[in-house]
């Protein structure tokens, strides 16, 4: 019997007290490089990748990173937007301008098409986030997309904190969180059987603060609603909801004109604004760093439905 010392040679000695290495790569640079690496792996190993693009800040940063990954060539991916029909007009305009300026291809899967022909029915609370799953999965099947980039970040929510960077979905689009593939080092395994696809999350290790620091550093334009503006709002469940076609105050809820910004941008029917005076990315960085509530906690009614609302949606194939 040999001893383990013969077979596992000792690594070079290192000390906890050793001075920090003279790294020239900053934390944001490291995150950027990690994301770019992921985009290139997917471009090389998949046939029909698609980027989920909503015009929200995370998908905008994702597209910016994808452009960097392949410069000076264009982005070799289609974009897909699952449109609830309850969008902020500023965000839709941003989406369309971006697609036109960069000469990208955009597919839109519309929840309203499904409501119109009865394949989906409106929920009693009027929100549509949960209704996006079926149109998303149909679009993936119809276009035979085999890799689907999502802007989900692990710091957002406790089910997303469990997600791999390459995350397999079965032929029904389902996520099986109890049986995920091991994912070691930076060796991403994109193998999948026909009918299965892989969700890919290049921003997995970014925090909300990283995203805003990066937006500030890179001067990335965003839809105006991410910055402070005047808007008539009313308060419900501790959130500031805009008065609009999809959300009206109930009896006893008073409408006031407030200076607000959106911390996340989703379906207008379940996304709240936060009181804010931030007019630049640098202002937002200061606000986010001082915030005592998480971004989804502050702004998303759909995550409050139950203890495992996001996990349940994700298992069914949601983003």
């Amino acid at each position, binding site marked *: 019997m040999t001893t383990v010392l013969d077979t596992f040679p000792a690594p070079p000695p290192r000390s*906890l007290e050793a*001075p920090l290495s003279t790294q020239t790569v*900053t934390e944001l640079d490291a995150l*950027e490089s990690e994301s770019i690496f992921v985009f290139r792996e997917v471009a090389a190993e998949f046939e029909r990748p698609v980027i989920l693009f909503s015009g929200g800040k995370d998908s905008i940063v994702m597209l910016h990173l994808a452009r960097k990954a392949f*410069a000076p060539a264009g982005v070799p991916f289609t974009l897909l937007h699952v449109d609830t029909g309850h969008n902020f007009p500023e965000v839709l305009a941003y989406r369309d301008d971006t697609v036109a300026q960069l000469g990208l291809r955009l597919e839109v899967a519309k929840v309203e098409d499904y409501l119109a022909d009865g394949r989906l029915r409106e929920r009693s609370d009027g929100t549509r986030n949960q209704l996006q799953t079926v149109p998303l999965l149909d679009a993936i099947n119809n276009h035979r997309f085999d890799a689907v980039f999502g802007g989900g970040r692990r710091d957002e929510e*406790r089910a997303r904190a469990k997600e791999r960077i390459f995350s397999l979905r079965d032929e029904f689009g389902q996520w099986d969180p*109890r049986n995920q593939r091991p994912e070691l080092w930076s*060796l991403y395994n994109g193998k999948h059987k026909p009918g299965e696809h892989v969700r890919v999350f290049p921003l997995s290790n970014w925090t909300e*603060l990283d995203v805003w620091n990066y937006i500030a550093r890179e001067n990335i334009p965003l839809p105006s609603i991410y910055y402070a503006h005047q808007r008539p709002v009313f308060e419900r469940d501790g959130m500031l909801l805009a008065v609009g076609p999809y959300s009206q105050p109930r009896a006893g809820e008073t409408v006031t004109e407030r200076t607000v910004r959106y911390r996340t941008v989703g379906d207008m029917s379940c996304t709240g604004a936060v009181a804010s005076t931030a007019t630049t990315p640098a202002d937002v960085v200061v606000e986010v760093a001082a915030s005592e509530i998480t971004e989804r906690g502050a702004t998303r009614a759909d995550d409050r439905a139950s*203890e495992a609302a996001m996990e349940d949606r994700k298992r069914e194939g949601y983003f």
Partner: protein
Amino acid sequence: MGTAEHTLLRLATAGSVDDGKSTLVGRLLHDCKAILADQIAHVKTVSEARGGDFDFALLTDGLRAEREQGITIDVAYRYFATDKRSFILADCPGHVQYTRNTVTGASTADVVIILVDARHGVLEQTRRHLAVAGLLRVPHVVLAVNKIDLVNYDEAVYTGIAKEVGQLADQLGIADLRAIPVSALVGDNIVTPSTATAWYDGPTLLDVLENANGRTDTSAQPLRFPVQYVIRPQTDDEYRDYRGYSGTVASGTVNVGDPVIVLPAGRRTSIAGIDRPVVSATATAVAERPTAVAGEAVTVRLADDIDVARGSVIVAAESSPGTRRELSATVCWLSDRPLTVGARLLIKHTTTTAQAIVTKIAGVLDLATLGVIDAAGLDLNDIGKVQLKIAAPLAADPYSSNNITGSFLLIDAHDGWTLAAGMIDDEEGELL
């Protein structure tokens, strides 16, 4: 406040089930004020609904099944920062059944915190996780002797466990081990020094984490640049004839003008240019840079028009690893399906995926003695030594000198499942 200029430390927790990993993580996050009001409110509500005290583990056990069973099934990643630095924390499972997830969490860690319940001492899972940390060459291992309050803060209990783990660490080649007596539940020596352990004059857990050096800087090592994707715009502009090889520098530093060899072909050429992307709202271009270091994603151009594709590795001309089609390696077997000699698998090594045959199983690590004993096959969670024959030449280094060109996955060719994590041994395979 976390800023972009902080250095980053990646840490992972390990240890047997019920040693209190998730509680430790919850305590660390809580005492670092990294848990926000809505997260605390959520844990309070759920804890109260179950009729218990504030359950720190609910902060990271995010899956329904985890909460129902009170165990951790898969890694939860948490992000927090102190005034000194930022952390990515991987809270890993303790159950033997989920060891593959612990290997996942530890593979990218700079520090692994191994917990031991002071009442139970070193268990088989402690040994397994120590072996994994040693094998993966995680730079720092912290032994947290937890629940020290439940043994009346007895110094002798702590010293006994620290000594035993110290010996195991020596056997496993773990160079940097630090032991700390803690109580995750009460908070002893996590963020603030405990008055109950007056006999311990070392640092708290957070002190150790804030001062540990992070990712080993490999920019002084020989250049290894696996090509991921060839960039050819083929547009009608200044980039009409552009041909760049994109990838992330695995180790070393690349400079314009450096002589290089492109493996596996072995062709010599030099670096004609290194490009970084420049993107604005409307334009996508590149700008030249003189140099790039390990960890940076860049695109390089070569002086000669030679055959370079995904799977090629650009290496320093003066220290090429050559290529090999046979490997001796240590593997962590992560699948329920046993491995036997003669198995045909896929190997994924840097940007190459090729067929492989297992030609020999040279032994398996016996956790009781930490010796290698004969085995006909490898079962789930076994750590074993294998020899592989590979259908394509690989530009590989030993894992001890390069953890990117020295590591690989074994993949089931039929269903795509990741079967094993592999680390190439120091003994030379047959160089071709």
